[in-house]
């Protein structure tokens, strides 16, 4: 394969990110690294949600539920064995002696989240539009209640604290890169085209031979996998996990990132996630100086509404920055549903 312009662009982008992470790990303070870490985790969550929601047209709010699964599974696996015994008395013995390192634990968290997504998705994905949104919202609440009451395994409302701080920026941005790579390759493959076809017109897609149930379930599970990984990284960055850690508000914020970035645009979602994270941190000192608490949220809300009014298709619509796209995809842009006269009956 000959070297093309977009390969060069990707190479430069990767080099820039590696340089940035190396610089951050060496020079930035713990606080600045934490903010960067959250930005990276949110970028990964937004990318995976943009893949399953934006590209496939599912309207899922369930990401926090999968983060909960991934976070708790990973945290229980990495938790120091000497404290696990008395803190989590109901754990089966073989689990109580485990003390995994971050990578396998994160992977296990992701797999567990994907498994939950497959089990839940099998019935729930038959629902459409807002019905699916409510059902996935219900998933967050059900999981939270279960974790809250499973004291012996999760410490209930008390939450898991003292989780080892294993997550660093290398892990976060490594996973982010993997997530982007997988979603990107899938988007620009026949699978991605099938998913887009489902979003644009499910019936027509089915007529063209797209196995829509299986395709939707796969996209949902992939999104859940990265949400689980995100939850695991989050837990090992914050070192503290409670049933309230991943809320409905978080589900909303992630959907906001996807829409601001442009539904289905992976890079757009990542940029929106990073921008929103940094913006709310950057505005905080202003809020403190003025003494007007709540200002950050107000500014973000106003910007969001303005954005939707002035640029309803988001930053990039469903497309990606031209520079990064392989040549065959550079000319044509997928049409956004807003340009299509369509109305549910």
């Amino acid at each position, binding site marked *: 394969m000959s070297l093309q312009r977009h390969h060069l662009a990707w190479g430069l982008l990767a080099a820039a990110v590696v340089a*940035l992470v190396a*610089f951050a790990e060496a*020079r930035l*303070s713990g606080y600045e690294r934490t903010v960067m870490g*959250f930005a990276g985790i949110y970028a990964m969550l937004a990318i995976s949600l943009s893949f399953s929601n934006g590209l496939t047209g599912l309207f899922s709010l369930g990401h926090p539920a999968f983060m909960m699964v991934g976070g708790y599974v990973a945290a229980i696996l990495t938790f120091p064995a000497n404290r696990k015994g008395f803190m989590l008395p109901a754990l089966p013995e073989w689990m109580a002696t485990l003390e995994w390192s971050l990578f396998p634990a994160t992977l296990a968290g992701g797999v567990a989240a994907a498994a939950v997504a497959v089990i839940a998705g099998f019935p729930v994905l038959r629902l459409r539009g807002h019905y699916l949104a409510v059902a996935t919202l219900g998933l967050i609440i059900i999981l939270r209640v279960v974790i809250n009451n499973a004291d012996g395994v999760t410490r*209930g409302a008390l939450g898991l604290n003292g989780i080892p701080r294993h997550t660093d920026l290398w892990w976060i941005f490594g996973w982010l890169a993997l997530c982007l790579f997988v979603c990107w390759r899938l988007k620009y493959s026949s699978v991605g085209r099938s998913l887009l076809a489902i979003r644009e017109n499910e019936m027509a897609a089915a007529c063209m031979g797209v196995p829509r149930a299986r395709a939707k379930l796969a996209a949902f599970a992939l999104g859940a996998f990265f949400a689980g990984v995100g939850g695991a990284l989050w837990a090992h960055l914050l070192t*503290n996990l409670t049933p309230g850690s991943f809320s409905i508000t978080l589900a909303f914020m992630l959907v906001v990132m996807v829409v601001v970035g442009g539904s289905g645009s992976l890079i757009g979602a990542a940029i929106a996630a990073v921008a929103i994270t940094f913006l709310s941190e950057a505005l905080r000192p202003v809020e403190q100086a003025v003494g007007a*608490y709540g200002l950050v949220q107000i500014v973000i809300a106003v910007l969001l509404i303005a954005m939707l009014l002035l640029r309803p298709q988001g930053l990039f619509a469903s497309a990606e920055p031209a520079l990064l796209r392989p040549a065959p995809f550079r000319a044509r842009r997928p049409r956004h549903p807003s340009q299509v006269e369509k109305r549910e009956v």
Partner: protein
Amino acid sequence: MRFSSVLMAASALALLGSVVPSQSEAQEPIRVAALSALTGGMSSLDGPSLKGAELHVDQINEEGGVLGRPLELVVFDTRTDQQVTATAAQEAVSSGVVAGFGQSDTTFVMAAAPTFQDAGIPFITSGATHPMLPTWVGDHMFMAAFGDDDQSYAIADYAYDTLGHRRVYVWTDNSMDFTRALTAFFKERFEERGGEIIDEDFFMMGDTDFSAQIARLEAVDPAPDAVFISAIPSEAGLSVRQIREAGIEMDIISGDGFDTELVASVPGPDLANDVYFSTHTYLADDRPEVQAFIDAYEAKFGHAPENSFAPLGYDAIGLIANAIEQAGSDDPAAVRDALAETRDYPAVTGTISYTRENMVPPKPVSIISVHSAEFTVEDIWRPE
């Protein structure tokens, strides 16, 4: 070139990181981080706590500061949100503070305090009361308040001995570690004393409708002597009002989650009756520092302290300032050692000494009653 924006962001970050903190000079203030939830559910506790702290900082600076240097509060609004709390803790330990304080609930303390522990900076929680906190976090974690075991024992003893309760029904907010701990310690003590826990009901933080639980409470025959409600302020006034509105007149007992004016104002003077709760001591004490605090608070803010979290915030600053003086240095390690050696510090909420092995200060506990929406201190319970 689209990369320019990425590069610009990178160089902006680089610039941010390269700002080296300037060397501390003699008159440079000693900075203390305040991590308080000024918005969200915990704000009715953290808000007064921060005001108490601000008052104490002003007083100290008027008298020449500590070690001849002014004290400065660096305030972070933690928004009743774990992630914001954790990030704020990171920011605080990166900004050269000598100690941190704040937070009135265990969950949020656990989001912040381990960061201070790792950074070797002491953290005092003004209001959280879980007796295991110092054990969980480590030797840089300090409590200005008593432990939940003490306050639960206090109200259990008072209910059994003074109010003569033998059969008690228990309501618990099942979504919070604080409320669950309070219930566990209460049941332990009350049953140990020979009382009977008839049954339990549960609700979740944010519930506004208690009609189902009330109907069940009403149906208990014979009626219990009291209902113990383990709740935080947002549900405290609501539950009292709805129980009284249903015509149930049994005593209502609780812990410091009820230490809010909402317990009186939400039911109103006609219904806010026969409520007893244990809380931090200050109102009934005739020690001079108590009255001085109340007067100064009224002078600064134009109203009396909202609840006992205001003096707790005041005391947290007092403990820190005292430790800095004792250490003779603003080095966090020295301040931690001095804090751990605190003995008989005359705090507004009772004398503080870190003498117990679990580092929870043994402090007197007040029993407060509410009749016709008036708060009265009934008794002061002392740990043995």
